[in-house]
């Protein structure tokens, strides 16, 4: 151990001494530290641990503040479902965490993007409050990466693919999305623009028009969406349509790097999405749609509060198909709807749909654009990202969705995150910081004990140095230098280790949020802390140094 410790101290040795004599105090200290390499390393290690813990907490505290409590998301208002917590809505939209708390009518978005056009009769005029609005629809995934349905305007182009007039949409102050490859998707095509991390980690690339969709899917130029975000043991329900990747975004260092963006309209072209509201109603009532006879669908839908006239035939067809796929002869032909529904209570586990079983619930127009069967007034969105026209616009929108319009709720994500940080993270990190200070104090006591022991063991050596002409002050300085060196080197190693720990934390955060932290930057607080550690270590060394100061030379020379 001594040998390896000695070798490890070589760098130190090199840093503080020239290798030629005369022997200075540093060389003397290093020599003596090398001689007691195990003790030196253990003390260094304890200082390093304390420092690393403190620094990593400081970095996490600082960076989590900038990560969670940032006020700049590129939008100042988030419009989400009326129920559900603002925090869930914000975390879901900004960091793509958790599942969406619900949906809001598409018509709100449609009203917001009318621009200068007068509002529809009976519809509110959002123009004076809303500068830009971006739709946000979630619910599907691809290989555990979230798929977000949105509009091309998010990436600074209009529906025709031309740059938008005025300021493009920002994901951070003065930072608009940029493409690393390809182009932005068309608003009504099965096309996708993917985040840099998705492209990187999943090996996806811009599709090859010469290849078929299936071939592109195989090579990573296209993908099919999976319903929801299935767990590792769940059978994925993969949708039928294939989205061609037409563009790859440059890294934004936000959670959006881990997202696949598709036109929100294309999400309504998925059968399950179209019937989503019906599914939801059936699920709430605990009904198994396959046990409902085809001729009684309308009755059941009506009982559930759904207007059967508004349900497209494609969705109804799905019911019939599902019904056919079960054992038809076993179905009760009850005349009473309630009785029928009682019998149709869903089993614990519904049979998984087979791949490709869904019928198409859309058609393509002559330009090849998607036209969903679901009428536009049935469309829904998970959220709308809004850039308001200043504080007044912001307050009016908040007021509007708080008092007047109960179809949605408006939150200020920056406020939500600030509150979240102050409530949870700030308190927790302060506690951790206190712990880390305690760890440092323990490490300082460790230095004190270690150096005190070494001084006690070295009383004879100190007596020899005194006999060779070393003054008491020299010995005092010698021991204090040793303690300070342990504090400094342990502190620097701890600083590095703390940053490395934060780096690991950043990887985890990146996995969780798609957004890492700046774990490299060293701020003044850390340097101040390092200084404090060195001072504390030196003070810890002062106690044994004073003991050495008083060492009687003659007695200890004889004792040796």
């Amino acid at each position, binding site marked *: 151990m001594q040998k390896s410790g000695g070798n490890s101290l070589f760098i130190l040795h090199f840093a503080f001494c020239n290798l030629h*004599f005369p*022997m*200075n105090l540093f060389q*003397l200290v290093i020599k003596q530290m090398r001689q007691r390499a195990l003790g030196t390393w253990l003390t260094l290690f304890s200082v390093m641990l304390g420092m690393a813990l403190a620094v990593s907490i400081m970095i996490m505290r600082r960076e989590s503040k900038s990560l969670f409590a940032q006020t700049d998301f590129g939008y100042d208002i988030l419009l989400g479902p009326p129920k559900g917590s603002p925090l869930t809505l914000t975390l879901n939209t900004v960091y793509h965490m958790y599942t969406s708390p619900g949906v809001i009518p598409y018509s709100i978005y449609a009203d917001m993007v009318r621009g200068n056009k007068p509002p529809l009769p009976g519809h509110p005029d959002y123009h004076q409050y809303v500068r830009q609005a971006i739709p946000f629809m979630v619910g599907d995934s691809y290989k555990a990466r979230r798929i977000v349905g949105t509009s091309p305007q998010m990436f600074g182009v209009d529906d025709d693919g031309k740059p938008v007039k005025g300021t493009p949409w920002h994901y951070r102050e003065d930072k608009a999305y940029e493409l690393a490859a390809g182009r932005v998707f068309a608003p009504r095509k099965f096309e996708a623009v993917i985040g840099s991390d998705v492209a990187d980690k999943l090996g996806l690339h811009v599709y090859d028009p010469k290849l078929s969709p299936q071939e592109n899917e195989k090579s990573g130029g296209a993908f099919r969406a999976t319903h929801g975000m299935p767990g590792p043991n769940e059978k994925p329900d993969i949708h039928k349509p294939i989205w061609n990747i037409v563009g790859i975004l440059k890294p934004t260092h936000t959670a959006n790097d881990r997202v696949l963006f598709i036109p929100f309209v294309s999400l309504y072209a998925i059968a399950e999405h179209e019937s989503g509201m019906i599914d939801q109603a059936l699920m709430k009532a605990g009904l198994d749609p396959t046990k409902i006879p085809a001729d009684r669908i309308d009755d059941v839908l009506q009982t559930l509060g759904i207007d059967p006239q508004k349900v497209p035939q494609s969705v109804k067809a799905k019911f019939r198909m599902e019904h056919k796929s079960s054992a038809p002869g076993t179905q009760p032909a009850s005349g009473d709807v309630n009785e029928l529904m009682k019998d149709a209570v869903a089993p614990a586990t519904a049979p998984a749909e087979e791949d490709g079983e869904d019928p198409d619930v859309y058609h393509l127009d002559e330009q090849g654009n998607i036209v969903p069967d679901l009428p536009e007034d049935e469309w829904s969105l998970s959220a709308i990202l809004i850039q308001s026209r200043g504080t007044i616009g912001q307050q009016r929108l908040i007021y509007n969705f708080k008092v007047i319009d109960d179809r949605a709720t408006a939150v200020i994500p920056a406020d939500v995150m600030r509150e979240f940080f102050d409530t949870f993270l700030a308190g927790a990190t302060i506690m951790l910081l206190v712990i880390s200070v305690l760890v440092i104090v323990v490490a300082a006591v460790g230095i004190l004990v270690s150096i005190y022991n070494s001084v006690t063991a070295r009383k004879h050596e100190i007596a020899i*140095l005194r006999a*060779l002409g*070393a003054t008491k002050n020299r010995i005092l300085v010698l021991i204090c230098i040793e303690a300070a060196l342990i504090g400094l080197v342990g502190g620097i190693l701890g600083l590095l280790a703390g940053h490395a720990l934060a780096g690991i934390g950043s990887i985890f955060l990146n996995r969780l949020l798609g957004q890492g932290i700046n774990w490299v930057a060293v701020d003044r607080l850390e340097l101040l802390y390092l200084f404090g550690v060195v001072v504390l270590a030196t003070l810890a060394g002062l106690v044994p140094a004073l003991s050495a100061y008083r060492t009687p*030379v003659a007695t200890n*020379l004889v004792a*040796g």
Partner: protein
Amino acid sequence: MAMELSGLKKRYVGPDGSVVPVIDIDRFTLASGEQVALVGSSGSGKTTLLHLIAGILTPDSGRILFGEPAGVPQAALAAATLEYQSTTPPVASDTSRRASTIDVCALPEAERDIFRGKQVGYVFQTHHLLPGFTAMENVLLGMSFTGRRADPAWAKHLLEEVGLSQRLDYKPEKLSVGQQQRVAVARALANRPSLVLADEPTGALDPASAQQVLELIRKLCTEVKASLLLVSHDPQITQQLERVVSLKDLNKASK
């Protein structure tokens, strides 16, 4: 350089509060370059005397003067006897009589330490080398506290002189006891001191090694023109020196 003790007294206070006189010397001188053996029984105060001379201990009273007596020819000083008496004891401030004398006892502790580092070479009974340091480093360590520029060439020369030119990078644990003591001798001479104090330097060695070490000490002291005060029990050793002083005769406290 000569050394002169006068009215030197040192007492120890025992654990029971009793006062035990250890050193009580009226006068003792050592001429420049003189090599003197100091003999005495165990507990007669030999080591205490050396510690007092080196400034490791301070006397209760008396003076320890280092320096050239003004107007006294070097040769005359060298020929001075043990019983050399001076009617007026020299003091450090007495510049008219002794321009360059220093009373070690009157120096503040830090200055005494530095003076010891520069002017006194000490060879202990056991080598007292620092274990983590090589032979060369141990010798250089002896030069580290003088405030003067260290002289690696001189250190190397000393180690060559003591026959360790092939062992410069050896740490003490790799050297024999005799070799360790030879390194200690080299270290004592590292600063070209004016006085070498050797406290039973051959006590732990076999006769052959003891003889070697003695010869080395004497040779090197001559080379640097240092006075030598060597404590030993061994008549084989002491009889080789120019003068043998019995502490029993010198020290009233040991009578």
